[in-house]
């Protein structure tokens, strides 16, 4: 990509490395279209693409100390965007391999409408209590990632927890919820 902004991205990043927040914000806003263009070559779905774009921004933030102002910034950024896009594809392939969506797996009554209404009513009360009983970090992870359906990047930004910490909290919360709901159902 060439354009009026590309040439000074390197100097903006050099300023950001020195702690200039305004230069950094300007840089991140200017590179968004460039990053989106690379990511969308690999990911057609807009939601998924935007998740990957945010992953790229987080990576840029994390590895910004590795940028050498003597080298072209666009190549540095392009390599990160390309790598994160490939990583997202691999994650998707892994998930698709091990997870199967089966609507009938949720059906427990012969009449579908009864099934949905009764089960939803019963489960929501149990689930609400179970979520309320979770430790604060786990409860926040469930609320942001499952109830509000934020991406990991958004949830991280909203909560101040790292993506890794959110993943761990969510995993523990889901196991705790399974245990609590399972115990209620056997009562």
């Amino acid at each position, binding site marked *: 990509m060439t354009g009026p902004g590309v040439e000074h991205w390197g100097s903006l990043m050099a300023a*950001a*490395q*020195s*702690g*200039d*927040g*305004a230069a*950094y*914000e300007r840089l*991140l*806003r200017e590179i*968004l279209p460039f990053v989106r263009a690379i990511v969308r070559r690999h990911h057609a779905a807009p939601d998924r693409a*935007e998740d990957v*774009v*945010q992953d790229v*921004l*987080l*990576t840029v*933030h*994390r*590895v*910004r*100390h*590795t*940028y*050498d102002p003597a*080298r*072209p910034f666009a*190549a*540095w950024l*392009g*390599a*990160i965007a390309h*790598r*994160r896009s490939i990583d997202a594809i691999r994650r998707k392939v892994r998930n698709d391999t091990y997870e199967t969506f089966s609507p009938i797996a949720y059906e427990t009554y012969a009449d579908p409408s009864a099934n949905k209404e009764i089960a939803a009513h019963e489960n929501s009360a149990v689930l609400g209590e179970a979520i309320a009983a979770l430790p604060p970090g786990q409860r926040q992870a469930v609320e942001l990632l499952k109830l509000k359906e*934020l*991406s990991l*990047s*958004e949830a*991280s*930004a*909203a909560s101040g927890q*790292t*993506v*890794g910490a959110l993943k761990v909290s969510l995993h523990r919360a889901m196991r705790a919820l399974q245990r609590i709901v399972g115990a209620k159902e056997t009562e």
Partner: protein
Amino acid sequence: MAGSDDLILHLTAGLRPVKRLPPPLVRAFIWLSVVAAISAAFVTEFGRIETFIDRARDPKMALELIGTLATGILGVIAAFELSMPDRSLRWVLLPLPSFVLWLASSSYSCWRHWVATGPGPWVLGETTGCFAWIAGVGVPLAISLFVILRRSCPIDPGPVAAMAGLGVASLAAFVLQFFHPFDVTVIDLGMHLAAVATVVILARAAARPGLDGVRV
């Protein structure tokens, strides 16, 4: 997109200065210098230096030593280069010529030994000590190298770890020559390569937990 805008605000709020990493070649040189200093002290104290010098006068042996040492140095340099986000994956080819030289000269040594003395008994004998040496020295070296490489937060840790493993195992194999007062046989060569492969595989397996600084 609101999510990305929010994220940018979050990332830029209260931004702190970061210390820029020195060039990878400089970092590789520093790490290699420290390892060279420790190895030199160890070899001076315990190595068979006169035997080593006598053997190194043989051009075939000199080539083998140069190939081993160069594979170690170039493997470490390749690891440092690959740890930077914008470096080409072709850096993995850097230690390849010296590795071929090492393999070819060692194989010639095996063939010469075979012609002179026959195949000999197919027993492991002291070669298990060679394996233990390369793995025993290579793994701690790899850990120390991982600690340095982690600062780059490699975005693709696999090739970085593999090159680091090849580099440290080759350096260990080079230092081993100061305690290995005989030409390699087929069994020796097989054991040396198996040890190098073991260190590379272990390093590659440890790439994600050891080097992945990106998964915040």
